[in-house]
């Protein structure tokens, strides 16, 4: 695993929503990437002060290009800089890609259920894109809980990739929905109605804020899904044990 810091060039930026931005990084050397992995980013201020944060990779293009999507956290230390100030042509120090657990491996033929809360969709999008790029036969389903339509990341890409039996997408709008769509939070019943059935023994990936991940994974276990088929990640990279 690459534990050293390397320079990466900011090749492009794309405003994903009013508060989130996708940053395309061109790495110094070819990278080996598994969908679900994250990058560590290190910023150095002019006086030498440094800060490190982890961001999930949203897309990869061989041999050396990785996209991260960063949500601006109000009052955050690093994300406002990345979302508002960083420009094409700048350089960043990066370490990774990192992570060997919250990843989708194409050699796994299981159906896959992805469950995202807000910006937790980022590592799941890398899985969706890899699945599509490989024309992988496993059925994928994405359940995406989001505040309102304007907060949806990758809307056009998701719409383009959705196809019955290949990638099915369910949006849950918690604050405001498009016309004709309900507003509401997931609960145990609506969750069970939206995800791949137990009988298909899906590999399940859940990413979002702690409360969301705790609730969703708990409901799935209560509904009879095997805990060892459920992989979780909270904001912030490694699904460690803190």
């Amino acid at each position, binding site marked *: 695993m690459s534990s050293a810091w390397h320079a990466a060039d900011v090749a492009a930026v794309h405003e994903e929503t009013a508060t989130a931005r996708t940053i395309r990084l061109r790495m110094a050397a070819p990278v080996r990437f598994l969908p679900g992995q994250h990058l560590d980013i290190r910023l150095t201020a002019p006086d030498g002060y440094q800060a*490190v944060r982890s961001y999930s990779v949203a897309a990869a293009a061989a041999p050396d290009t990785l996209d991260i999507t960063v949500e601006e956290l109000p009052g955050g*230390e690093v994300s406002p800089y990345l979302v508002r100030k960083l420009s094409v042509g700048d350089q*960043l120090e990066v370490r990774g890609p990192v992570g060997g657990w919250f990843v989708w491996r194409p050699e796994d033929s299981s159906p896959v259920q992805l469950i995202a809360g807000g910006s937790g969709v980022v590592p799941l999008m890398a899985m969706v894109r890899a699945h599509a790029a490989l024309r992988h036969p496993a059925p994928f389903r994405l359940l995406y809980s989001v505040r309102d339509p304007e907060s949806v990341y990758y809307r056009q890409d998701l719409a383009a990739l959705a196809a019955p039996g290949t990638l099915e997408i369910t949006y849950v709008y918690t604050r405001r929905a498009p016309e004709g769509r309900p507003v509401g939070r997931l609960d145990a019943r609506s969750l069970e109605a939206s995800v791949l059935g137990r009988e298909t023994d899906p590999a399940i990936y859940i990413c979002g804020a702690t409360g969301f991940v705790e609730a969703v994974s*708990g409901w799935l276990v209560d509904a009879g899904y095997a*805990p060892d088929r459920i992989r979780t990640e909270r904001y912030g990279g*490694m699904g460690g*044990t803190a």
Partner: protein
Amino acid sequence: MGIISSGFHGRRTRDDSGLPPGQHRTADFPVLSAGPTPKIARQDWEFRIVTETGATHRWDWEGFLGLPQEDVRADIHCVTSWSKLGTSWRGVALDTLFDQVGTTAGFTLAHSYGGYSTNVPLADLLGGKAWIVHQYNGEDLRPEHGGPARLLVPHLYFWKSAKWVRGLELTRHDVPGFWESNGYHMYGDPWREERYG
């Protein structure tokens, strides 16, 4: 390497002095887990130490609470780069649990309810360096933070402090646990920044 981000200034009010390299302070207590939080009833809880010869020492919840309890104040350092200073815990020192255990093994593999595991050299668990804790800030340890009880090894990255711990297996060789098999460092000293293997 010397890449300066001229528009980046960081949060100047914050004091990260005295932290291991690459860490920043947090006032929150972030939760990170690889899977669902296991539900463990205290009456079903058991902690065991199994030596390299197979000798097994067991404690149930009452027996565990009946052991001498220690209050621990410690700084904790998560590999995802946050550190939390001056955290308060209560539990039983591993020294106490190992009082009756005869072993010449050099390593341990901690096992948790839910299947998690992590390896720690035995010397890093003894000598007042590690505890099995069941309270945080004076209250029962919440399930998402590892309750009923977790390992606390504050001088190593916090993934070594296995949540929902149910036992220690003594091993003659250093056997990688869960994260150690998934790209993370075998030892995990935050002061030497041993994040990745």
